[in-house]
């Protein structure tokens, strides 16, 4: 894109994600349709932009045409963080225009808008209720003339015009779509009882917006939109050789570090896969503890256990480094609920935490939390790949835990497409039956570009820490479905 195109003056919406999607905001002097079904957030988005505009010292005019009453609208807006009562009416001015439309048709509405923009010196205009204007037009031609009139006003005053209208589907085509400078479409749908809101830019003249669906959240903070993380993460390619030649980071468990010939490579991604209760989280926390011991900064990002529970759990096996690290500000433990989250928000939260802490070690406990939070299942693989690549680019050494569906048995299903392809190392933890006792076993299944000890060890979590024992060395026939470590296989039958 040329510099000239980039230099188009734009009105910043002040909504960070939206300005990113719009390539820096809405070009000045343009008319834009903001459409979507009732309840999709059009009014909140428009008001949020108005108050951000006012906060920047400029004026906005909000014209309603047989839309929600101003009293009710303002009552709803009062709970929003962006709402500033002091900005009304000096910098955000609301007028009703349906009476003028009834009296004098579209010509009167156009005149009212033009006069009010001049009277108030507003540089942002919202017309809420475009459908009413359309219905009062005698023909498409007359309505298009009205839109054209707004374009002339916008261009002459240098203001941005947002036209709010109801529509159900993106595929619905209206003649005015060809005339306006942009069309933003909002959706509000249910997916398995979960409400899903999205924003899509159908058109934006003179710009290269981030296309596709972007998740929207409406809360007391107002209108939030997050560009799909696949469009932002993983854009920097990180050469695999750099990781292969990187320093080795130890777990601080001598036996395991020996099996790994010193540890995992800096910047690598390691899957800790195992059945429930097999010790995946504790092993990950031990990796963080060792980092803290050698003065590194670490992050724990989990979906299931709260930070205080994690700290207490570590304390019980003599791992006090986590508590000390948190107290010293060198460890940050984050807990997120996966089900009601938005996968893009979670991804941002994870990456921001790594950046904020300048972390060199990271544990993601329960990676499938991202999958549970994904709005569209077909995105999951791309989301994992993007997160993996971004972590690689940040050169943080990452452990992520994956829970096996079954406690026993030869089959190992690892449905983490996208992430597993980028994973350098895989460590398996399972319960095994051994001489009428149920023990925990650890085996290394994969270390990319490096040799490793493929033996099966017993892993014990004691009051003094984690120990690996050669319990099974003389007893290779473990009773767990015929063998301990069949190859990882996502779909096919178990391989021996």
């Amino acid at each position: 894109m040329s510099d000239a195109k980039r230099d188009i003056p734009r009105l910043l919406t002040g909504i960070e994600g939206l300005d990113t999607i719009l390539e820096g905001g809405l070009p000045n002097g343009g008319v834009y349709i903001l459409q979507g079904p009732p309840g999709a957030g059009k009014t909140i988005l428009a008001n949020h932009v108005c108050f951000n505009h006012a906060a920047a010292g400029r004026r906005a005019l909000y014209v309603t045409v047989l839309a929600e009453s101003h009293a009710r609208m303002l009552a709803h807006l009062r709970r929003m963080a962006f709402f500033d009562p002091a900005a009304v009416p000096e910098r955000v001015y609301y007028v009703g225009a349906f009476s003028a439309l009834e009296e004098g048709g579209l010509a009167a509405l156009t005149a009212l808008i033009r006069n009010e923009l001049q009277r108030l010196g507003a540089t942002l205009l919202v017309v809420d209720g475009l459908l009413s204007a359309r219905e009062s037009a005698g023909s498409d031609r007359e309505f298009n003339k009205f839109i054209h009139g707004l374009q002339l006003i916008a261009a002459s005053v240098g203001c941005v015009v947002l036209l709010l209208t109801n529509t159900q589907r993106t595929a619905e085509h209206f003649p005015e779509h060809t005339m306006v400078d942009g069309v933003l479409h909002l959706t509000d749908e249910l997916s398995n009882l979960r409400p899903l809101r999205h924003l899509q830019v159908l058109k934006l003249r003179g710009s290269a917006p981030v296309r596709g669906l972007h998740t929207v959240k409406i809360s007391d903070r107002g209108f939030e939109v997050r560009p799909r993380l696949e469009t932002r993460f993983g854009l920097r390619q990180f050469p695999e050789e750099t990781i292969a030649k990187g320093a080795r980071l130890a777990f601080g468990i001598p036996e395991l570090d020996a099996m790994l010939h010193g540890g995992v490579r800096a910047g690598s991604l390691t899957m800790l896969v195992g059945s429930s209760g097999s010790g995946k989280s504790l092993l990950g926390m031990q990796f963080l503890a060792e980092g803290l011991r050698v003065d590194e900064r670490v992050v724990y990002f989990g979906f299931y256990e709260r930070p205080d529970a994690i700290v207490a759990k570590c304390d019980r096996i003599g791992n006090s480094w986590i508590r000390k690290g948190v107290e010293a500000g060198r460890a940050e433990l984050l807990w997120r609920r996966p089900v009601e989250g938005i996968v893009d928000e979670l991804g941002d939260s994870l990456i921001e935490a790594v950046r904020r802490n300048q972390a060199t070690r990271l544990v993601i406990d329960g990676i499938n939390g991202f999958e549970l939070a994904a709005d569209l299942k077909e995105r999951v693989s791309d989301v994992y790949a993007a997160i993996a690549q971004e972590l690689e680019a940040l050169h943080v050494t990452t452990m992520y835990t994956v829970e096996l569906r079954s406690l026993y048995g030869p089959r190992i299903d690892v449905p983490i497409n996208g992430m597993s392809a980028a994973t350098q190392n895989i460590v398996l933890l399972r319960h095994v039956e051994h001489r009428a006792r149920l023990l925990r076993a650890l085996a290394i299944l994969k270390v990319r570009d490096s040799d490793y000890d493929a033996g099966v060890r017993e892993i014990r979590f004691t009051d003094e820490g984690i120990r690996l024992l050669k319990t099974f060395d003389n007893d290779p026939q473990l009773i767990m479905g015929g063998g301990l470590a069949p190859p990882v296989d996502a779909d096919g039958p178990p391989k021996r």
Partner: protein
Amino acid sequence: MTAPNQPARPAILIVDDEYGLGEMLRDVLVDVGYEVSLAINGRRALAQLQDRTFDVVLTDVMMPVMGGAELAQALRADPRHRHVRILFMTSLLSVAPSEDGLYDAILEKPFTPEHLLATLDAVRGLTPDA
């Protein structure tokens, strides 16, 4: 037409740009004996005030062409209308108390008919300023 010996009905001018609101208030007020006129902005209200007077002006604050504050200033500056009772109807919490006598009371939107009538009674009972 007012019957002989029957007191004239109090006249009220409702000024609001929100479609349907003025008509709804008019229905409420006519039922209790007011004579009601409507205008959709301050300038239209001033045009009506050229030919006659009202006991009360019940006006919105934010309106196209001329807002409620400008209308009230124009009325207070006009010797013919300076004593008219002015009620602001608004959703704005930022409207300052009327220390300079610009208006006589505020009705915060939304309000009930009972609240409207009680406020009107209170305002009409005020002694006109000298």
